[in-house]
């Protein structure tokens, strides 16, 4: 057929189109990700979000029996807002009061009900520089 046109161009064009199609397919099926919010931004939010915050005690309850209850506050800034969280499922090793954690879930009647097993602690390791205030304060 079109002997003078380079198939390389055709191949690249087709591939790019293919990749775009896959991308569109993905976004139309799965939608975007969840917005990541701080506790102070949560008020009045509907729908599934990701909540990142600092654990405030006391931590009560049983993660595998009725759920763990604790509060989260902002990591940055001086907002004093806290959000009550109800969480069930596996609890990472590093979870404790004062740690940064991330949970997925939804605000229901003033309590952030987390998806079971969604908790991630922000690893202090992974070579991230230790905040200088962390240990001495």
């Amino acid at each position, binding site marked *: 057929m079109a002997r003078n046109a380079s198939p390389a161009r055709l191949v690249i064009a087709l591939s790019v189109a293919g990749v775009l199609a896959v991308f569109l397919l993905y976004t139309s099926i799965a939608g975007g990700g969840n917005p990541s919010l701080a506790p102070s931004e949560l008020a009045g939010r509907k729908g599934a979000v990701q909540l990142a915050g600092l654990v405030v005690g006391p931590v009560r309850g049983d993660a595998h029996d009725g759920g763990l209850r604790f509060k989260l506050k902002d990591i940055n800034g001086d907002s004093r807002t806290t959000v009550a969280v109800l969480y069930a499922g596996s609890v990472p090793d590093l979870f404790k009061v004062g740690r940064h954690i991330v949970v997925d879930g939804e605000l229901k009647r003033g309590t952030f009900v987390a998806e079971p097993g969604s908790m991630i602690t922000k690893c202090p*390791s992974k070579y991230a520089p230790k905040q200088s205030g962390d240990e001495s304060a």
Partner: protein
Amino acid sequence: MPELGRAALLVTLGLSVYALVAGVAAAHLGRRRLARSARNALIASFATTAIASVVLLAALLRNDFSFTYVARSTSEALPTAYTISAFWGGQEGSLLLWLSMLTAFGAAAVSLNRSWAKDLIVWVVPVFAAVSTFFAFLLVAVASPFATQAAPADGFGMTPSLQNPYMLAHPPLLYLGYVGLTVPFAFAMGALLSGKLDERWLIATRRWTLFAWAGLGIGQLLGSHWAYVEVGWGGYYAWDPVENAALMPWLAATAFLHSVMIQERRGMLKVWNVLLVILAFSLSLFGTFLTRSGVVNSIHSFTQSSIGPWFLTFIVVVVAASLALVFWRLPRLRSPTKLESPISREAAFLYNNLLLLALTLAIFWGVVYPMVSEVVRGEAVVLGRSYYDFFLRAFGLPLLLLMGIGPLIAWRKASLRSLLTTFRWPTFAALAAGVTLLLLGAGSSLPGLVAYTFSAFVIATIVMEFARGTRARRALGAPSWPAAFGSLISRNRRRYGGYVVHASIVMLAIGVAGSSAFDSVAEAKLARGESMRIGSYTLVYRSLDERTVSNATEIRATLGVTRGDRDLGTLEAGKNAYTVEDQVSNEVGIRSDKLTGEDLFVIAEQIDRDGSVYFRVFVKPLVNLIWIAGLVFLLGSVITLWPDRREQRRLVARASEAGIPATP
């Protein structure tokens, strides 16, 4: 002696700047002695960086807490091995490691006797110098490892999760990979600057690229194994930005290693190859930036990090400058040949490249999406595991299939009829495997089934290639079958080493598919004497013990394991409570089946006061293939990397034929 360290870094900066300026001047004006001098400066900068490293290492080993870096990352009680690993445990030390490796690679790459490429190397020196100027500047002015303070009584110690043998090898291997990708970048830029866009820069850097790529690959696999065995959440890869940081340059380098072959054989894809090298190097800088600057989920931390803005500026400058160079040299990068048919080996390699690139970009998009959305929409949106899993399947499965097709399809133009003949047996093997697995119940996961079918296809092609090649070598006069096999590999290390690497990737795919698509999980709260079942396993919770060791209290639950009627002994899972660091860590119990590669993985999630334990148990079929794949990958890389004298002789002969004298 922090002064010596600081001075050594300052001298390194001076040498780098000199090598940059003098190198450019010498190459531009064609001055031999000045070029020599610039090269000497680059080599000397390796010595000075080494001195700085020795100073830091000595301070770590002596627990000299007057070094802020030492006090922050170690303590008196820390075992010596981890004191050494503290070198790359923090930001400043790891930057110093980067610079040491960079100058070592630079010195080695420009002083290895490459008589056939010396007109190129003149321009490679200033490129290396430019990169090392940046790192030396960071170490001198922004993040000095030699900052001092009034010595505290003890250091802050190291996070328990980093106190681990894996942390001795995993980070340096990754850095070896990140930094190693500078070599192809420097040669590519050298070729662009000098206008010598023949294939010598590719040949000069092929082994360096392979080396860096193998380092990245093994380093990542070690990291995965660490996550699996030590972190204890039941997986080995979480699509964490820091993990992706190493995966992206690896994928880009994989694409480059393949497309290089097209340029060498057909003279095509010259621009593409240069672009891939730029991409791989930029991604390795980006990876270092991600791991080092703490900019992961939010730009807020970006402004807090001291090196972040510098790094980002440098990446932008690197990308802009190298793209400008490519654009400038575009007329010289025209290929003499064109793709003749979309069904040919070069086309298959091109598809492979596009898929690898698409996967890289999808991951990149996932990594930067939180930051982009924070800027655009005002709130960070995080893409989860499903995003990455989707693209791994969408692009990874076709890649797997191409791995079987690419090496067997004819160059230039393959006829459909001969395709049918070539792939008759592999297709048959794949279909047979697919149907068998379907009958065995693997239809529960479609992607898993497809992955296994494709894997069978690829394995069949690899076995066929080795068998036919050996037979041909034997027919050509090899005295015995083993000799025929040996000569087959040694005559074309890249091809057959490549097949070994392909086999390792197939093993990896089988392991990943087995452990993620066909795994099972069960959880239960058990009191002593109670039992739970998962698959064909029965676990009985027997006892709970507490022992105190030097720095931790270890609590262990003992489980009796049986499968069917067979007693498989006991398994321990529990937690360690570290007293000084006030931290708890999961210590998982793993029972590997040596025959099937299946793991029984037990986490004691919650240990209650009354002695009852909440267990979470996984059965992960074939997961051990992933770790074996690492060994096979290493073997294949070594075969491919092994020096080839014949090739060296040919290159020297060609260069002298063209008029480059063979004297250094």
